[in-house]
């Protein structure tokens, strides 16, 4: 092996730890991301080098490389095209784009052109669902891609030869409806100022008084989580911002991280103060790599302003924030998988208990919250719990950001108070004739038109941020098939009900589509779906059958008795 390559690999290994040698797996993912970025692949030699440098075995390096979509042992083309395959982009004409890409490049998906210029892949949701079909070319994002545009993009790449500029993105914020969060009613840093003037327990008390529940999907009471982390014993504690916004149809964190990064970090700092942590980590999904620079810029500015670093606001409290990148794995949005990934490992969910508030990142008490949760926390401290509770229902307080996409005329980001009905929401977004909505993305639930009077709140239809409108002409089996394909790809592969069950359900949907599924078999599949919900290890596996079950429950007439396609 050429020693120049070895030296370059060594450079990247050292750079991953600020120039210092590092042992163990803690920085493994960071090292691999750097090598991938520099060489476009992680070669066997590189894996051996990394293993030797970190004092682990080559197969342990391969374990991690083979887990993440954005890491590859095969040499990719100079330009890697990743077309989003998830539902919203599917609905907005992904297929025609896909065909055009194959014709334009003369290769199939999963292949690289013989000249080593182009690689064609699909990817799961990149958070541009309101502007689909979306596609990434290396780090650059294209939205509203059409077959005509495909040709232009390919030509542009061919002309350029060099690396595509990174961080250049082509999308609009698409904010459609503003509420207190998006209008920024709170004075900058008012929340942080007030929190630091209070005792830790009073700060948590304010959150409790506001009944703030987590915005990531599970809706766990935020004050309880912080209280547990604050009470947990540990020399070090951590605050983690879950910015692995991977749920199909969700893109609201895209807006918050770009335009409201200060509010996010303000909330993280408040959390750090409340639980006694000195360090915050933002786990940013690989698809949002283009935001990394601006987030780090915000961190620098906040350091200069004394909002981060030692003695925040001249109080006896230090807090800093680091941005860490994901590498293309939806399951890392699950908090324990996210922690594993932060620790440089495969993103496999952990057994619970113990919970992260006791045993989290590096075994220390850790509070993991969603991006939007931190923004809400800052708002609550700034404006007070009493003010906050004026929004929403009694049990579900505040407002919620919704990412609306699919068969509607005005897709985009909406801020509604909790408790809005589905039909009100559809009126706003121009999806009045929908036959169903999928709330909460692939792992959420399907609500048919007959139930559109339901409200979106923790006490009724759980407020997942993703709303995908399913129009009257849409085949619900296509929807289920798309979601199940997604889960088959994104299951971590650890537990049997999820890794194998998703595959059986997908096959079942395809049987239904072909008109070859007996009712007897359908009953077996329904039971299997129940077993997956009951027995899967983490939220991914437990919710993977949701879409399938929803369609069975609400659209039996539509899916049975199809003409066999023999």
């Amino acid at each position: 092996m050429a020693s120049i390559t070895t030296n370059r690999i060594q450079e990247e290994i050292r750079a991953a730890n600020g120039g210092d040698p590092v042992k163990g797996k803690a920085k493994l993912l960071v090292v691999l991301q750097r090598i991938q970025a520099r060489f476009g692949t992680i070669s066997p030699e590189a894996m051996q080098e990394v293993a030797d440098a970190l004092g682990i075995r080559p197969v342990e390096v391969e374990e991690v490389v083979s887990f993440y979509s954005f890491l590859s042992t095969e040499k990719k083309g100079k330009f890697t095209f990743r077309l989003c395959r998830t539902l919203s982009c599917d609905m907005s004409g992904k297929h025609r784009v896909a065909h055009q890409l194959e014709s334009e490049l003369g290769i199939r998906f999963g292949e690289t052109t013989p000249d080593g210029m182009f690689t064609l892949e699909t990817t799961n949701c990149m958070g541009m669902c309101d502007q689909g079909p979306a596609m990434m070319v290396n780090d650059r994002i294209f939205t509203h891609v059409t077959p005509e545009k495909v040709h232009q993009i390919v030509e542009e790449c061919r002309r350029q030869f060099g690396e595509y500029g990174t961080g250049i993105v082509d999308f609009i914020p698409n904010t459609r409806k503003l509420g207190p969060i998006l209008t920024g009613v709170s004075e900058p840093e008012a929340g942080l100022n007030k929190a630091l003037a209070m005792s830790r327990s009073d700060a948590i008390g304010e959150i409790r008084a506001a009944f703030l529940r987590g915005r990531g999907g599970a809706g766990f009471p935020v004050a309880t989580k912080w209280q547990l982390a604050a009470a947990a014993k540990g020399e070090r504690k951590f605050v983690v911002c879950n910015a692995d916004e991977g749920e199909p149809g969700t893109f609201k964190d895209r807006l918050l991280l770009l335009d409201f990064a200060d509010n996010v970090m303000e909330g993280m700092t408040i959390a750090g103060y409340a639980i006694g942590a000195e360090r915050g980590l933002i786990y940013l999904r690989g698809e949002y790599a283009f935001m990394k620079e601006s987030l780090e810029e915000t961190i620098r500015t906040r350091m200069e302003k004394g909002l981060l670093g030692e003695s925040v606001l001249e109080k006896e409290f230090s807090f800093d924030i680091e941005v860490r990148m994901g590498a293309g794995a939806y399951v890392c949005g699950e908090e324990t998988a996210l922690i594993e990934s932060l620790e440089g490992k495969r993103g496999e969910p952990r057994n619970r208990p113990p919970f992260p508030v006791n045993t989290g990142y590096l075994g220390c008490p850790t509070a993991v919250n969603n991006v939007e949760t931190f923004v809400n926390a800052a708002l609550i401290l700034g404006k007070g719990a009493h003010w906050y509770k004026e929004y929403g229902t009694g049990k579900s307080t505040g407002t919620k950001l919704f990412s609306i996409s699919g068969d509607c005329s005005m897709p985009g980001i909406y801020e509604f108070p909790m408790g809005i009905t589905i039909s009100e929401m559809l009126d706003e977004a121009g999806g009045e004739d929908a036959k169903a909505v999928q709330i909460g993305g692939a792992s959420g639930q399907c609500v048919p038109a007959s139930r559109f009077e339901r409200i979106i709140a923790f006490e009724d239809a759980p407020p997942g941020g993703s709303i995908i409108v399913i129009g009257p002409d849409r085949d619900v089996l296509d929807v289920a098939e798309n979601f199940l394909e997604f889960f088959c790809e994104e299951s971590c592969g650890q537990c049997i009900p999820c890794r194998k069950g998703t595959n059986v359900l997908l096959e079942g949907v395809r049987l239904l589509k072909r008109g070859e599924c007996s009712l007897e078999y359908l009953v077996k599949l329904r039971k299997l779906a129940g077993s997956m919900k009951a027995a899967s290890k983490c939220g991914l596996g437990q919710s993977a059958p949701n879409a399938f079950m929803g369609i069975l429950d609400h659209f039996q007439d539509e899916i049975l008795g199809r003409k066999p396609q023999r």
Partner: protein
Amino acid sequence: MSNERLETGEIGGLINVTIDGKTITARLGETLLETARRNGIYIPSLCYHEDLCVAGSCRLCIVEFEETGAIQTACTYPVTQSIRVLTGSPKVRQARRDILGLILRDHRAECTTCLRNGNCELQTLATEYGVTDLPFGKREKPKRKIFDMGPIARDMDKCIECFRCVRTCQELQDVGALGKIGRGDDTRMATFLNYNMLEVLCVGCGQCINRCPVGALTERDDIAKVWAAIEDPTKHVVIQTAPAPRAAIGECFGLPPGRCLTKELNTALKRIGFDKVFDTNFTADLTIMEEGTELLLRLKKALSDKQPVALPQLTSCSPGWIKFVEQSRPELLDHISTCKSPQQMFGTLIKTYYAEMNHLEPSDIVTVSLMPCTAKKFECERPEMGDSGFKDVDIVLTTREMARMIKQAGIDLPSLEKSEFDEPLGLGTGAGQIFGATGGVMEAAIRTAYEIVTGEEVPFEKLRVEPVRGMEGIRQAELPIVKAVDAWKFLEGATLKVMIAHGLANARVVIDKLAAGELADVHFIEIMACPGGCLGGGGQPIPTTPEVREARARAIYKEDEGMPIRKSHENPVITKIYEEFLTDGPCGQTSHKLLHTHYTARGSKIV
């Protein structure tokens, strides 16, 4: 999320839990599965193994909480509060059936031709849960059988992805040949870039085989070669049997662990057609003479001659350990005793001493050995193992293979009459016998070396050198030498410091310390690749668990105490061989040529 927290001080306390309406006492902090099993309550499991860290991935051990209907896996759930659970509620049973159906959809169930037929955890569970049809059909996949060249065979079509092998390889053994590659449905056990097992740091210990619940991992089957040799009238086929298989082979015939069938085995082997049946204990005794002398010589060099010499001395009997150290710490190879393992000493003597004595052509002799070990299959193929001028040991059979061979011959081993080993290499001592247990080599060496140096028997009741016994992963012991005979006067007043480690993760700890210079005052270290020593070897009957290992150890120590001679240096055949054949004595020239070896600094680079 539970608000209850377990304070460290509470661990070890007791608490009541109710399982299926029956209230039992749990130890705070233990898992629900441990509580259940300790109290004789059965909860099925597949990815769980007593020796390994918990995975919680097969989900078969789920239980339902009575009050909330919540589901938890018993293997991962720590008991920290009084709970009421059901182990067989309708929801739980349905989920278990579905999980088994999912596994069977992908598992190539060739039960009738599978080596694990009748000893397969999946087969048992499928029967138990009445999975008599395939609820989700069968998925056709291209055959993925992998023919490795080493001692371990993989059949990926049978793999059910419980990853017990990977946890064994990475955590229990700290070898890291196997890994969990891929994601989703494609997650699989594999070697680095699918290289051949022997190319990827595999030491051949076979511990992965012992923990495979199905027939995905097996030893390379060498039975046919043995039958062919036996059936060839021109061949003189000699077998040696090691103590560990003899203490365990009964398990393959339905006996509970812990019964030695040494003499029944002699009868069976002769009936099968082996020309001679010898005892590896004999060369174990010889190893003690050689390795003990080597140690004393190293000590003399260090303490009396004040010359630089590699101390502590490390044992060399365990071929998995040898390859492990060649790979991971080649700079320590000087510390390893140059003695061949008892198996290889035996092979050499058969094709030299024994051949001469019986006027046989070494090329007509086939040496077979019955070992608890898969790494021995690799060891006998090392190029340097041919000091007799021929391949010293031709074929190695594991305990499991031998059990199959005996069954193929239509023999019911436990009911056979007893018979003795053949002369002359059939005489071994109790010291050789205990080589099969962790600490045994050390104990045998101490029994002999102490007596040589002091002129007195070791100061332990019934020769039980208790400080070196037991199952703790790393053990240390000291033996003061108050008085020494003239030849070893320089040792008078010294304290012999020894260490014992078993299982390669423990071995790693020891050699890392050694490399860091922390063990400079230790004289002798016994290391065995497998947990429990040879009795827990990778070729032993399945299952091998902590309790099974304890039982086998008891059987081995019991057999030692029943033997007429229990010290290697008192073995009359050993005395004879030094008079007749190895005439320049232990570690003399002939010994060095025939019984000692050298090692290869392999390093850990794969690419």
